[in-house]
């Protein structure tokens, strides 16, 4: 025996004892227990304090709908607050702690709020905490913050791992009770791909809690036999411990799987969130029992009758020594007989449909007695309450369906308009007789298999009972005779509902939000119906007209970690590495994230104290010797076809139709609204063969745009595009000694002289004794510059060959920081200038726009702007006091102008320290920029509160004539 309240029988393993702790005290349970059943077996009835009034609370249900027994499972980083004890599969060594009390569970000083209850009714916070205003942030907020919330979150990162996955099937069956098992058997026998998901760790649903016989076997044995038969079918996937959280578009369901205790490991996921795409779905999720509303109905020991049944039959646990039964249907006597047969002492069976009604209960730390209206006091320590059952129709109405009311069972069932492909079977649809559930499940499984093109074999009927106990219409017992709870978790009483009605919050959606009923972690599974029945009585409208609040996923709370899967930390997004990554790392590169790419920022050398030292050195190496830079990340698109020239000419604003073979040209690509989308180059490698480059960030968007032009705007053109970014490792070689270096690498007879390979030439050649390559003479830095591309696998080797061959030339690897300084010194626009607001005219590139052809962006590029920003122009800036730094993002104002938007003339887009000049330089977009060259303005950084006087100059700081790159 483990626990003084353990009975004989049940579906627990007495050979397998487990130790666990609750609030620091050690107990013993059995394999097959939940934490709740093990606590009850040990006589622990007080498990927490209620949210608002800190009332003592006990275990209320035996399943997913549990509102009271919320514990924190585990300690430290791994603690899981608000865990339903009824859903915790007991394992050896677990530690659980009760929540929401100051000091020990048995004596919570915050229970004083219970005495203040008359002032803390529904919506009290809308009427309080208003005065004095000074108290809002200093007193009320900290107090409320401390008192609010249920459970405490660990402040360290969650150590658990999670994963996600995708499954496809013909039929998803939700629930492995009698209807679900029958449906899965029927469809599985037909050969359909079936997934059977059940929230529990043992199949059978209510068969495990109730005493039924099916075809001569006990219900539990029958369920186990079905499960075994299904496990043997290769076309069936069984998913125990898997909760279907929601139904989404097009037959997609979200299923959260919890890993079985025996398979858990600290380095493996604890939960997997599956996206299941099912052609058909059978919802066999069963039903949830409702309590009754009467004064004092929240004491520990008061439970749902079906839960009492489950604890006695499945877990062999007596919830108390003397049990009373209160029901509004015929099932009370039968339950009494069943419990008595298990050895319980029955105190009374009270029919809630008649008189005398229950007047109240006594027993603060746990139920001791209940009182009837005729004065009789019935001593009992457990009370089994039943107000009928509500079908678990949630998944059927997640997609905007409306439930329908059935008077005969006093419950909502799925409406007539079900989502495509979804059928309901069993109690989830309002059928409570076991034979009906089994038959409906079989028919639903057969229908699903047939719809998917299979031929299900005939199935025999089942020999079993079809007992049902329809409940009477809702009636509050002894109204006004004391506080009667409707929503246990958020401490909402019948009085609160009457208050909401008086104050005008009468629609069910307003009622919910004003009283907060149904908004706790249990989503009102046990309380919602009583609440809307009470409101219906107040308004006189009736339950169907009152309706329900909207049902939304998830069906039960789900951890954010499970929704994220492994997409946290390093897994957040893929990482792209260039072909030169390892080579760069070996040379001491520091990497920066550029979208998905890792790019070398700079290459620190011994003796350098900070990044500026490295970057300044790299810039000067390019300006005076030769530098090499990994530019593999730039997008490359291979364009071929008879109409390739016309296509390229259509997507760029500048002319490309006459670009000769063997030449490359800078291309400016606009959006249709005239704004610059991207800039890059396009090389003509052959008559019908072009290679386009894009900026790193825009490789995918530009390709998408080009395919849009090709497929949707110009399907008449014979042209094909192949993304080729990853094919090539590409290295920029820049500086006065660039040609000298390359001469040592290119294979004869390639003529790399200035005459043989002039500025803006391109060619296919071989390097280093036979490796195929492409060479482009383009310059982002403004120095004599080339870009040499080899197939990606040879990138590292080429970089190594370059540093080896160029050692005496002073060859220096440089990163994106130096690259950026060099281009700013030359006045080349880049990302900060191509920010989605600038058209060619703003960038001083109006001349590039061709006149005689239609192209994307032609028409709207020239339109006048309303706000005057149309006159913005790219300019250069120098700090008047050369020693002062410039700040990118600073705004430009006239001297003496107030710092308001009306006087804003523009802003600084790019800033760098120029080692070539010895001071900061900047690029800016400035209204009427050309006319202001030579004048002085103020650069205002309002966030830092700083101002710098600046001189407006041409944006081309180095070699404005461009002689170096053409030499």
């Amino acid at each position, binding site marked *: 025996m483990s626990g003084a309240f353990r009975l004989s029988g049940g579906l627990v393993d007495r050979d397998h004892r487990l130790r666990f702790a609750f609030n620091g005290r050690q107990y013993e349970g059995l394999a097959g227990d939940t934490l709740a059943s093990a606590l009850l077996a040990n006589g622990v009835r007080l498990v927490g304090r209620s949210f608002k009034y800190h009332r003592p609370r006990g275990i209320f249900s035996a399943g997913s709908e549990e509102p009271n027994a919320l514990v924190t499972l585990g300690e430290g980083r791994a603690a899981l607050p608000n865990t339903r004890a009824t859903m915790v599969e007991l394992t050896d060594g677990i530690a659980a702690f009760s929540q929401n009390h100051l000091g020990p569970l048995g004596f919570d000083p915050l229970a004083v709020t219970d005495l203040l209850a008359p002032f803390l009714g529904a919506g009290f916070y809308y009427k309080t905490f208003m005065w004095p205003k000074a108290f809002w942030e200093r007193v009320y907020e900290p107090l409320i913050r401390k008192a609010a919330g249920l459970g405490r979150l660990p402040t360290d990162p969650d150590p658990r*791992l999670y*994963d996600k996955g995708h499954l496809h099937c013909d039929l998803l069956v939700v629930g492995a009770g009698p209807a679900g098992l029958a449906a899965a058997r029927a469809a599985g026998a037909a050969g359909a791909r079936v997934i059977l998901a059940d929230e529990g760790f043992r199949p059978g649903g209510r068969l495990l809690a109730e005493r039924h016989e099916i075809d001569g076997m006990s219900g539990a044995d029958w369920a186990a036999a079905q499960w075994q038969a299904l496990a043997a079918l290769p076309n069936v996937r069984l998913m125990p411990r898997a909760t279907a959280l929601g139904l989404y578009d097009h037959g997609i369901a979200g299923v959260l799987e919890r890993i079985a205790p025996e398979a858990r490991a600290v380095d493996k*996921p604890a939960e997997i969130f599956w996206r299941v795409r099912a052609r058909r779905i059978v919802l066999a999720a069963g039903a949830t029992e409702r309590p009754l509303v009467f004064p004092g109905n929240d004491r520990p020991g008061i439970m749902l009758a079906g839960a009492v049944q489950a604890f006695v039959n499945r877990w062999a646990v007596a919830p108390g020594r003397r049990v009373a039964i209160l029901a509004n249907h015929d099932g009370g006597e039968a339950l009494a007989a069943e419990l008595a047969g298990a050895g319980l002492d029955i105190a009374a069976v009270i029919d809630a449909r008649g008189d005398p009604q229950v007047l109240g209960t006594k027993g603060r730390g746990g139920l001791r007695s209940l009182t009837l209206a005729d004065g009789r006091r019935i001593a009992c320590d457990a009370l089994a309450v039943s107000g009928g059952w509500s079908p678990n129709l949630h998944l059927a109405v997640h997609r905007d369906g409306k439930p329908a009311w059935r008077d005969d069972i006093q419950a909502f069932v799925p409406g007539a308009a079900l989502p495509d492909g979804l059928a309901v079977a069993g109690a989830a649809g309002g059928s409570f007789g076991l034979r009906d559930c089994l038959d409906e499940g079989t028919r639903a499984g057969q229908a699903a298999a047939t719809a998917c093109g299979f031929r299900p074999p005939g199935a025999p009927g089942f020999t079993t009972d079809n007992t049902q106990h329809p409940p009477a219409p809702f009636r509050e017992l002894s109204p006004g005779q004391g506080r009667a709870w409707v929503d246990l978790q958020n401490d909402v009483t019948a009085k609160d509902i009457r208050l909401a009605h008086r104050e005008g919050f009468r629609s069910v959606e307003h009622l919910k939000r004003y009283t907060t009923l149904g908004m706790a972690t249990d989503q009102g599974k046990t309380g919602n119906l009583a609440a809307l029945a009470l409101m219906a009585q107040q308004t006189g409208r009736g339950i169907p007209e009152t309706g329900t609040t909207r049902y939304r996923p998830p069906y039960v709370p789900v951890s954010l970690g499970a929704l994220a899967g*492994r997409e946290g930390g390093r897994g957040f997004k893929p990482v792209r590495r260039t*072909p030169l990554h390892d080579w760069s790392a070996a040379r001491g590169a520091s990497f920066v994230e550029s979208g998905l790419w890792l790019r070398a920022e700079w290459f620190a050398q011994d003796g350098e104290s900070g990044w500026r030292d490295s970057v300044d050195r790299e810039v000067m190496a390019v300006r005076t010797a030769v530098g090499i830079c990994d530019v593999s990340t730039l997008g490359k698109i291979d364009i071929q076809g008879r109409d390739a020239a016309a296509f390229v000419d259509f997507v760029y604003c500048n002319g490309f139709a006459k670009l000769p073979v063997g030449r490359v040209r800078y291309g400016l690509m606009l959006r249709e609204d005239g704004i610059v989308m991207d800039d890059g180059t396009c090389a003509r490698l052959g008559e019908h063969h072009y290679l386009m480059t894009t900026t790193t960030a825009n490789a995918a968007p530009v390709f998408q745009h080009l395919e849009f032009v090709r497929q949707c705007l110009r399907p008449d053109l014979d042209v094909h595009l192949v993304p080729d*970014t990853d094919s090539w490792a590409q290295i920029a070689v820049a500086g006065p000694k660039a040609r000298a270096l390359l001469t*040592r690498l290119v294979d004869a007879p390639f003529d790399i002289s200035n005459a043989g390979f002039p500025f803006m030439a391109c060619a296919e050649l071989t390097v280093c*004794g036979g490796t195929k390559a492409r060479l482009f003479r383009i310059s982002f830095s403004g120095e004599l510059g080339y870009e040499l591309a080899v197939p990606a696998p040879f990138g590292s*080797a080429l970089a190594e060959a370059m540093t080896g061959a160029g050692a005496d030339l002073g060859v220096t690897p440089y990163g994106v920081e130096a690259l950026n300084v060099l281009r700013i010194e030359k006045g080349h626009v880049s990302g900060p200038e191509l920010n989605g607001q600038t058209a060619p005219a703003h960038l001083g590139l109006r001349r590039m726009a061709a006149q005689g052809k239609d192209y994307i962006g032609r028409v709207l590029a020239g339109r006048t702007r309303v706000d005057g920003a149309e006159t913005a122009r790219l300019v250069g800036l120098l700090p008047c006091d050369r020693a002062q730094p410039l700040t990118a993002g600073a705004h430009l104002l006239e001297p003496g102008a107030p710092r308001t938007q009306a006087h804003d003339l523009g802003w600084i887009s790019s800033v760098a320290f120029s080692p070539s000049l010895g001071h900061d330089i900047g690029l800016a977009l400035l209204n009427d920029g050309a006319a202001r060259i030579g004048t002085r303005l103020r650069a205002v950084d309002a966030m830092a509160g700083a101002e710098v006087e600046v001189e407006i100059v041409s944006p081309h700081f180095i070699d404005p004539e461009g002689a170096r790159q053409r030499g």
Partner: protein
Amino acid sequence: MADHRLAPSPAITAAPLEIGETRLAPRPSGGVHMLVLSAGDPAALAAEIEAAFGPLPAIGRSARTRSGAMLLRPSRERGLCIGSGLAPSPATGFHSLDQTGFWAMISLQGSGARAVLERHWRPDLGDVAFPRGAVAQSSLSGVSATLFREAADSYLILVPRSYAAWLFDDLATTLHWVR
């Protein structure tokens, strides 16, 4: 003048991983060519391909070429030829692009291969939707990849080289987790 030849580096330097009967390994590339199949007359295109290499597979299927290479057809306008090089031939219905360096290949074989893939691959992996010889392009953990079912329990994953190291690592994690 250079006399230092360039040696190629592999896209994936991680070692193969074998857990239970399932093996995850980089597959060295012997040559990959992208075939750009110009839409137009399907019959004429099929005839041209047949003359040049062998049968043109249906969309989503694969076929062996006469020279022993494997020709994958993931979409209407694309073919991927894995294996031998392709001699340029005068053709109007297609042209080819040497993308040997573009694609990294990862092999996933064994009884656990499906269990690994279903954590990453969105489309249906079932035997009806994705039988032996099937090929499809989709997202593998957010990376656009081509998946080829070489045999009942054997899959070949083709992914752009820059993603390969990260993806191999991600698949290796999954192989640890599902076994």
